Each structure stands twice: as C-alpha cells, then as structure tokens.
C-alpha cells in the first residue's frame, strides 16, 4: 500500500531537521520522499518518467560548477502562489550552493505574450541557464527556441514548448506527478465517501497541460475504480477567484451532492466558503496542492479532507541539479518527475515539512492537535 | 418688389408639449439688417435655431429666394449660406482661434493635409479687419468671454454668407468693440449680406437696424420699419404693458462715515490687477468701468478668492481678512455673480432649484438632511421675484433661455443674502424689462444696507445704477468719479479710454 508507506516514511522522520538544504555534501532532493511510489504522469512527448530521486550532484561536480560563475534566470508563468514560491525557493537555495547567481525572476501572470517579452528581456543579461514553465507550449515556443539557439541551457517545469527537442534545445522537463495527484485526490474522495455518492468537479476551463492532466486522472480513477461514485456536475473556472461562485451554483443545482473535487487549492478555498455558506459541513472536498488555507482546513478536520500534494521545493532542486548536469555536459533524462504525495489529516504536518522544507505555521500546528 | 431673401411661414415649435413658438412669420430682404427683439424666453433663439437646423419646426415652412427648403442640420444651413453667432456653445475650448474659425472647412492641399498657415493668415486678416487684437494661435479656452464673442463673430464672418444671424453679439463687448462690430455690419450690408440681429440693447437697434420684428411669448407681435417706430412702442411690445421707467439714475443717500464695509488696499493679483485700492461703504453701489481686458473681472475674482492675491490686503468692516478661496469669501459675506454664466455661474445640467440652493445648502439643513420643502419655497420665491420664465423649478437650467439663465445666477446669490455683492456684467442677455427689474433689485439691496460692486460694459447701465465709478485701465485704478460729477456718457467714455 503506497499510502501507508508514505505515511510511515515521513512520520518516522519527524524529529529530524529536514528543512534546509544541507550546506555541504552532494545535492539531491529530499531523501525522505518515498521511492516506491509509482509515477503515473507521462512526459509531454509520452516519455516515461525518471524519478527525481535518482538525480545527484557530487561535491566535486559542485566545485567544478562553482568555477564557472554561471548565471541563471527563472521565468515563471505566474508567481503568485505557494507552489511558485516554494519552487523558486528551492531553485534559489540550490543554485546558491552551486555558486550560480540568479539574475532575474519574472512572472508572466499567465500571459504568454508577457512571457515572451520576459524571455527576451532576461536574455539581455546573458544567463547560462533559464529555468522556466511555459504558459502555453505553442505560443511561447519561438522565444524559447531563440533562447536555446543563443546557447542558454533550458530546464522546464511541467511542460516543454512545442517543437523543441530534448538534448538539443532543452535539458529536461521536471514535473510533479500531476496525474498521480489527480489519482490521489480521487482516492481520498472515494475513501471518505465510502466508495459511494454523487460528486461534482470544478475544472480549469482552459487549455493548460497540468490542470488537464489532473482532472483527467481524477475523473478516470473515479469512473474506473469507483463505479458507485457518480460525477453529477462539472463547472469550469478560468479565474481562481470564481471558485466560490461556481461551487455555489453546483450546490444550488445539486443540493444532495456528497463530494467536490477542485482542480487546485485556490479555487478550492472558494468552494470551501460556498460549502460553509450552504451549511454543508458534511461535504467532502478534495483538491491538489498544499496551500496554507486548505492545509489548515485539513488539519482541523474540516470540509477539505485531503489532497494530492506536489513537492515544488524538491522540484526546484531537481531542476537546479539538471541544470548542473547540462553545465557539466552530463547526459540528462528527458522527463523527470517528482512523486505525488497524498495528504490527509493524519500526515498534514509531515506533508508540510516535506513540501516546504520548513515547519508548518502555528495555526496549522495547533489545528492538527 | 423681388421675392424676399428669406421667409419663414407659420413656424411653431413645442418643447415637451409647451408651445414656445406659435405660427411665427418672419421675412428678411437682401441687404437688410433686421432686428429680432423680445423678452427673455420669447423664442428668438429658438426661431433662429430652427433656421440653422439645430431644431426642426413642428409646423411651418422656410423659403429662401422663393424656394422651399428643409434645414435639418448645420450643413444644410451652410449650403443655404446661413451662418449664426450663437448665444451659447459654439466654440471648441481646446482648439485655437484659427482652428475654431476654420473648423469643418479647413483649407487643405490636394492630398488632404491641412494648410494651417493659410487658415492662420486668413484668421489674422479677418481679425485685423475687425480690428481685434487676438493671436490666431491662442487656445480659445484660455481667452476671456469678450474674446470668445469676437472669435464667434470672426467665425461667422469667415463663411461665405448670405444670411448672418447674430444672437446677442455685443453682450460681452465694450463700447469700442461694439463700434467696430457696427462698422463691420455696415460693410456687410453694403456687400448685400442680410443680417438678423438679436439684442436687448435698444440704442443699438436704432443705430443699425432697418427693420424690427418683435416676439412675445412665442408670438409675433409686430414688424416695422425702424424709422417708423419709437423706443417706447418697442418696449411696450416687448413687455406687453407699460414699463415703469426707472432706467435713470436717482441720487441716493448713504453714509460714507465710519469704517467702510470693504476696503481693498494695494491689491495685486496675477498679471492683470496692479496695486488697486478702493473703499466700499454700507448701502453704496460702486461701479467699475474699463476696457475689455482691463482687469475688472480679475479684480472681482481676486476679491472673491478665486485668483491668488500676490500683494495687498482686504479689510471687511475694518477687520483684515485673508481670502484664499471662494468659500472664505462666502463666509466673509461676499458673493460674486460671475461674467460667464455657463462656465462659472451654473451647472447647466441641473435644475433651476438645484442651482439656486447650491450656495445655501448649509442654511437648508434639517438635522443632517436638506430641507427640500424649504428649498422649494425659497426657489419659488426667487423665481417669482426675478420673474424667471420656467415651466417649473425642476426644469434643467440649460433648457432656459439665456436671459433666464442669468437670472438664476442672480437668484442663487440673492438667496444667500450676502453683505457684499459683486456683479460682473449682471445684465448680459437680460431683456429690457428684466434689466430694469435687476437694476431695481440692486438699488433695493443697497437701500437695505448691502454694499454692491457692479462691473458692466454697458455705460448706460453703469451710469444708471452707480453712486460712484472706479475706472480701471490696464489693471490700475486710474480714476474715481462721483456719479454726480458725470454729466454725460462721453465723460465716462473718455475716462475709460484713458485720456
């Protein structure tokens, strides 16, 4: 049982100080992340994932990289959530150990044209590495191609732009196991509902690889594994602030709803507010991404029962390591995934530590007691 | 005789079911200067707006040289060689004088690029011919009302025109500019251009007009050759009954002992008011005379706290006051009736009532609320007292005739019961009946102990009302004349011209 091993693994390490990346020794991702978790996501070109746990930079390699006085830029699609923050933190901390200066961090605010501008602008600083997540694999491809042509090593998060080739144009894609996270959310849902009931799905109504994978995984898992659970309502959002409105609508139409899956944590908070308002304290909400507010809700055994967590900090570390590989001229796998992590009340504090590399805030600590 | 150049037959017009023109006939011959007269709200502007396509008549026909025409908009009017100097709204404040004058028929080259040099040169010529000193490149919005009026006239003159309508063209002009305008009118007349001339100033009418048509309450009451009618009759037609003729100065008694109510010492403000000093006593009416641009309005504005004062002091009842804003002035008991009612005096989109109560809101409070019953009562009172022609007190100010708008501005400040009242061109656009009323009101106020300053370009009016006249020349007070010392208009005229 994967879930069990996960829980065991992390709870046994509770008293270890696992937070900061160690100041010396080889660089790897958090050792406590379980090995045996099957990675379900496939890469953008259907590649099978290589586990991020296999990546490592030795001390000698680090020393060698340090001599290069390399520069890196981080080009985000959006910088306004815990996921991005943790990812950037992971990248910055690891790059620092590698003696690589982070010369710019940009936020495209989900606009691909802004991202293209950001790439151009960042190139003015002649970075050696760009770590980036494309807003959209099609429309940003040209700009990345140009960056690649100018000799910059590209490491991608989650998705690779169309038409770019691994090994030639880019170093690697490091992804969370989005598919696995969708499955985790489905499993928690099924567990909490006793394998039976009517549920709704709030999905991201946009052509975005990551969120599409999650919803697909959730729905497929429910349909295939839990025939007694019926998806009776679907509602799309494009603006995360609309979670509440859409959830309210779904609840109005389906007052007998038992559960609700929301594609990520920010709209899930809106759904939470809607459920509270409707007096539906018995509703089961599951989602993806361990944000502060949903973590608090899980810890206090509220309406949000659990979620599939990504490990953005470690994803950041992986990306930095892969950048190091490229600088050293080492072979890199095309698709690396960081395992999904199933979070429920039982393991929420450990999960927090694992995800963010620091202790959970007091409010969550006290709620979990 | 030939067919008349223009004939309007049986013109009627309704606004919201109220008939403002009632089967009016109007005929204009070639080369004729035809005065259109009537009280405020008689329908003069409306009739002319029908002729220029601003409004459409509900009944009646228009013939030009015997041919029936329909005039739906300004372009139809232009095609019929009709142009008009409007009483309101016809310049674009953000454009220059030359741009305004040639608006919508700008000279341009073969590919459509404007030839501004040409329009500026043409403008300069027109202005020179009119003997007006305006730079064609000045932004109209920066100019004073008088210059607006001149620009309007220049604009109308720059058209190829057969019929030129002038709606109160001299209302903001001084004697000198008026003379210039009359010279121009005579020139045009010789060229065979016909002019419809609207004015409330009797003397002008008899100086330049050949014919006169009088409207009252939307009906035509008379058309006569000018030389066959006298002023008495005209006034009688306009007013409808005998007018108590108080348009003459009467010596009044007030005390110049003790402390003046207002004392201005060495006032300097902006570039136009230089070192002006004067005193104003309780119950006194002080006239201020000067050429256009001499700084009279600026003086009023400085006292009222709109323009900053660079130097000098203001004492009210012997006490020094620092007036930094109009609200300081209002608190000190001063009121200013500004020269431009549309820009400075009124919120045109607001009703008569809303405009009237604006300065007295704080006096209308019942708890924190506005006492609307009282507000209505006060408004009704002033509408009656000033004889404001409006359907009801909730009518939007911009829908009132020009003269009636001016009366609202007056009502607004009278309602506030100020100690010191400054009136800048208070009778612009006001009809002969109302002018007399306003002058009476000014006298009454003075008799009741208020102190009043009247700025006016109409010397007759100034002479009729003032106890003392201050002459301003290029921003300095050059002369102070006791009314008793002024035996004729010429004396004052000389003083104003500065010799």
């Amino acid at each position: 049982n994967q879930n069990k091993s996960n829980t065991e693994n992390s709870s046994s390490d509770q008293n270890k100080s696992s937070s900061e990346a160690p100041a010396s020794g080889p660089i790897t991702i958090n050792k406590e992340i379980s090995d045996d978790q099957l990675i379900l996501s496939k890469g953008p070109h259907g590649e099978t994932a290589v586990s991020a746990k296999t990546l490592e930079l030795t001390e000698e390699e680090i020393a060698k990289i340090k001599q290069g006085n390399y520069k890196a830029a981080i080009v985000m699609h959006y910088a306004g959530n815990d996921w991005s923050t943790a990812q950037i933190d992971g990248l910055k901390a690891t790059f620092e150990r590698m003696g690589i200066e982070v010369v710019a961090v940009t936020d495209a605010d989900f606009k691909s044209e802004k991202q293209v501008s950001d790439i151009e602008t960042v190139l003015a600083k002649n970075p050696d590495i760009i770590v980036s997540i494309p807003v959209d694999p099609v429309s940003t491809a040209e700009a990345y191609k140009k960056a690649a042509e100018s000799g910059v090593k590209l490491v991608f998060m989650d998705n690779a732009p169309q038409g770019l080739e691994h090994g030639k144009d880019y170093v690697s894609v490091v992804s969370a196991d989005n598919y696995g996270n969708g499955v985790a959310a489905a499993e928690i849902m099924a567990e909490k509902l006793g394998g039976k009931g009517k549920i709704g799905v709030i999905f991201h109504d946009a052509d975005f690889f990551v969120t599409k994978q999650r919803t697909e995984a959730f729905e497929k898992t429910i349909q295939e594994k839990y025939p007694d659970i019926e998806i009776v309502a679907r509602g799309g959002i494009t603006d995360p602030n609309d979670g509440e409105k859409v959830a309210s609508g779904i609840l109005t139409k389906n007052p007998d709803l038992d559960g609700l899956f929301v594609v990520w944590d920010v709209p899930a908070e809106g759904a939470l507010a809607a459920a509270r308002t409707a007096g539906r304290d018995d509703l089961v909400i599951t989602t993806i991404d361990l944000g502060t507010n949903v973590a608090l809700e899980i810890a206090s055994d509220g309406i949000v029962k659990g979620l599939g967590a990504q490990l953005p900090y470690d994803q950041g570390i992986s990306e930095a390591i892969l950048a190091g590989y490229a600088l050293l001229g080492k072979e890199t796998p095309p698709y690396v995934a960081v395992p999904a992590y199933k979070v429920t009340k039982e393991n929420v504090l450990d999960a927090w530590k694992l995800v963010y590399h620091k202790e959970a805030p007091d409010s969550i600590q006290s709620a979990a007691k | 005789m030939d067919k008349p150049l223009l004939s309007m037959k049986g013109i009627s017009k309704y606004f919201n079911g109220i008939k403002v023109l009632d089967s009016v006939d109007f005929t204009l011959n070639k080369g004729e200067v035809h005065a259109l007269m009537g009280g405020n709200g008689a329908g003069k502007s409306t009739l002319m707006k029908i002729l220029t396509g601003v409004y459409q008549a509900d009944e009646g026909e228009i013939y030009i040289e015997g041919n029936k025409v329909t005039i739906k908009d300004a372009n139809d009017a232009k095609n019929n060689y009709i142009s008009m100097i409007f009483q309101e709204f016809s310049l674009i404040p953000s454009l220059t004088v030359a741009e305004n004058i040639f608006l919508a028929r700008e000279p341009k080259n073969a590919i459509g690029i404007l030839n501004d040099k040409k329009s500026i040169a043409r403008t300069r010529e027109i202005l020179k011919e009119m003997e007006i000193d305006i730079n064609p490149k000045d932004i109209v919005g920066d100019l004073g009302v008088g210059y607006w009026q001149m620009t309007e006239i220049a604009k109308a003159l720059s058209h190829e025109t057969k019929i030129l309508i002038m709606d109160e063209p001299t209302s903001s002009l001084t004697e000198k500019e008026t003379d210039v305008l009359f010279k121009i009118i005579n020139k045009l007349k010789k060229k065979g251009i016909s002019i419809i001339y609207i004015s409330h100033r009797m003397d002008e009418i008899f100086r330049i007009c050949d014919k006169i048509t009088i409207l009252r309450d939307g009906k035509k009451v008379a058309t006569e050759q000018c030389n066959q009618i006298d002023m008495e009759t005209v006034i009688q037609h306009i007013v409808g009954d005998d007018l108590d003729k108080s348009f003459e100065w009467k010596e009044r008694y007030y005390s110049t002992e003790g402390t003046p109510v207002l004392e201005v010492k060495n006032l300097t403000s902006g570039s136009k008011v230089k070192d002006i000093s004067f005193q104003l006593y309780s119950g006194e009416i002080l006239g201020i005379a000067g050429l256009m641009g001499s700084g009279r309005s600026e003086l009023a504005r400085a006292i009222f706290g709109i323009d900053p004062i660079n130097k000098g002091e203001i004492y009210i009842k012997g006490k020094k006051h620092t007036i930094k804003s109009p609200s300081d002035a209002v608190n000190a008991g001063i009121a200013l009736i500004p020269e431009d009612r549309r820009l400075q005096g009124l919120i045109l989109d607001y009703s008569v009532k809303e405009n009237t109560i604006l300065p007295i809101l704080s006096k209308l409070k019942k708890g924190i609320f506005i006492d609307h019953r009282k507000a209505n009562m006060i408004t009704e009172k002033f509408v009656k007292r000033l004889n404001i022609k409006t359907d009801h007190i909730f009518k939007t100010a911009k829908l009132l005739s020009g003269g009636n708008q001016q009366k609202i501005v007056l009502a607004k400040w009278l309602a506030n019961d100020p100690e010191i009242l400054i009136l800048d061109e208070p009778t612009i656009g006001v009809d002969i009946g109302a002018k007399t009323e306003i002058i009476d009101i000014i006298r009454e106020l003075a008799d009741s102990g208020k102190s009043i300053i009247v700025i006016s370009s109409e010397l007759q009016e100034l002479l009729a009302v003032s106890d003392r006249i201050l002459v301003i020349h290029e921003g300095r007070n050059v002369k102070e004349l006791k009314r008793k010392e002024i035996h004729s208009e010429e004396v004052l005229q000389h003083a104003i011209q500065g010799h």
Partner: protein
Amino acid sequence: MAFDWRNYIVYIAFIGVLIYFSVTLYDEGFLSTSNLLNIARQTAMISIMGVAMTFVISTGEIDLSVGSITALSSLTAALALQAGFGLIGGLAAGLGTGLLVGLVNGFLVTKIAIPSFLVTLGMMEAVKGLAMWITNTAPVPIVHSTFNYLFGSGDIGPIPILLIWTVVITVIGHILLKKTAFGRQTLATGGNEIAAKYTGIKTNRIKFIVFLISGLMAGFAGLLYAGRMHSGRFTFGEGDELSVIAAVILGGTSLFGGVGTVIGTVFGSIMIGTINNGLIIMGLDVSQQMIIKGLIIILAVAFGRKTLKK
C-alpha cells in the same frame, strides 16, 4: 417632471433578467432562498465598493485602486488578527489600510493635481505589489471566528451578514448622496467644477473626502473577503475595479460626473451578480457565459437611456 422609463432601465433590466432565469431555471433551484441569498453574498463587496465609487465618479474622478486595496487590507487584517491584536485590531488594520491608500490618492489628485486615472492606476500597481510583498504571496489564514462571523461568513437568522452590511452601506450612501449638503456638493463638483468653486464649494476637499470614502470602503470590502474566505490573500478583489465601475455606470451614474445614484449602482451590481449566477447554474461553459454576459450588459442599456449619455 415627465416619467421617463429609460431612467429606470437598470431596474427594468434587472427584473427582466430575474424573470428570465426564474422561468428557465425554476427546476434548478435558481429561485431557492439559499441561491438568492448566495447572489446577495457574492455581490456584497462589489455593491459596497460601488456605493463609494458612485461618489468618486459623481465628482468626475475615478478610482482604479479599489481592487488592490481590497487585497492589501484583507492581508493586513489577517496579519493583525494572527498577531493577536484581536477583532478591533484586525478591523483597524483593514480599514486603516484602505483609508491610508485613499488618503494618498486624494492627496495626489487634489494637491498635486495629477489626473485620478493615473494616480489610481499607479496605486493599483503599487498596492498590489505591496500586497504580494508583505507575505511573499502566501495567504494568511484567519481563525478568529467572531471576525469571520461578523465580516462575511455569518448569518443572522436566515439573513447573511453580508446582506445586512450591503443594505446598511447602501442606505447610508444613498442618504449621504441625495439628502445631505455633502452629497449635493459632490454632484455639483462633478457637474461643473468651476461653477461649484465659484459657489464657494471646496471642490478639492470634496474630492479628497470622496477618495477617502472609496479607500475606506475598499478596505471594508477587504475585511468582508477575509471574513468570507477565512483568510487574507493578495488576489482578493483582483479586477474588481472594473466590475465596480461597471456596476456604477450600469446603475445610471455618469462617467463624466454630475449625475449619480447609489441605489442604481447596487442594482447594477446585483444584476451582474444575478447574470453570473444564472449562467453558472445553466451549466454553460465559461466562454459561453462570457459571450452571453457581455451581450446582456449591452442589451440591458440598448434601450437607450438619455441621461446615461453625457
């Protein structure tokens, strides 16, 4: 004065929308009390900011910073609560934030005479940046249950507290605008600033106050977001400035100043909220929702209200 139904278009449109959804979505629970109360909850913040924005727009100015203020004040309130300053502390932090930004806006518009569009556009960016910066974009949970109850989540009997706040603010706003000297002077300032000045109205002071009110109400909306979501977050109120302005204009306030109606604004806000809600319940795609919403907004006024036009 003659009755002109076109002056009441927002009410007519609102009733039209209501009837349409009531008929088509009858079986889907649109007319259920809980759904109608949801609409009230969802529109409360826009309505409340709209009341204040009605004043701003009535003076001929604009305030684009309200959305960002909302975000920042939800965070300052949440941080104050987290730091243990209690209910009053949280309230003071949230409202104070709004008031402070309003003060800066008002100062720059009236004293430095920068057009309000640019001032508040700049503040919108700067304040949003600040909101992102103070917690590095992390949300701040609020566990203070009285706070959450009072500002957003609570009900009194069947009536959501958000609805009560909306009604209270609307009534105060309406009286202030229509029944007091201040309101008159606000409208006069927008109607003709020069004439208003010549009347002794301190137009700059009016404008200053109006920006304070707008900031304060945006701060208050931030508290309501915080209480409703049990947290502060920098994305709250994102884009609200446009919804708020839309509600104001839809309600019949003139973008050029001089004409304003608080009640119209609130109906404008509720109408947009009702459309959103109805379309979601209809189960349309987001894209279809947007198309239809856009068209309804246009149609709602296509009957052409005279006074709406400058």
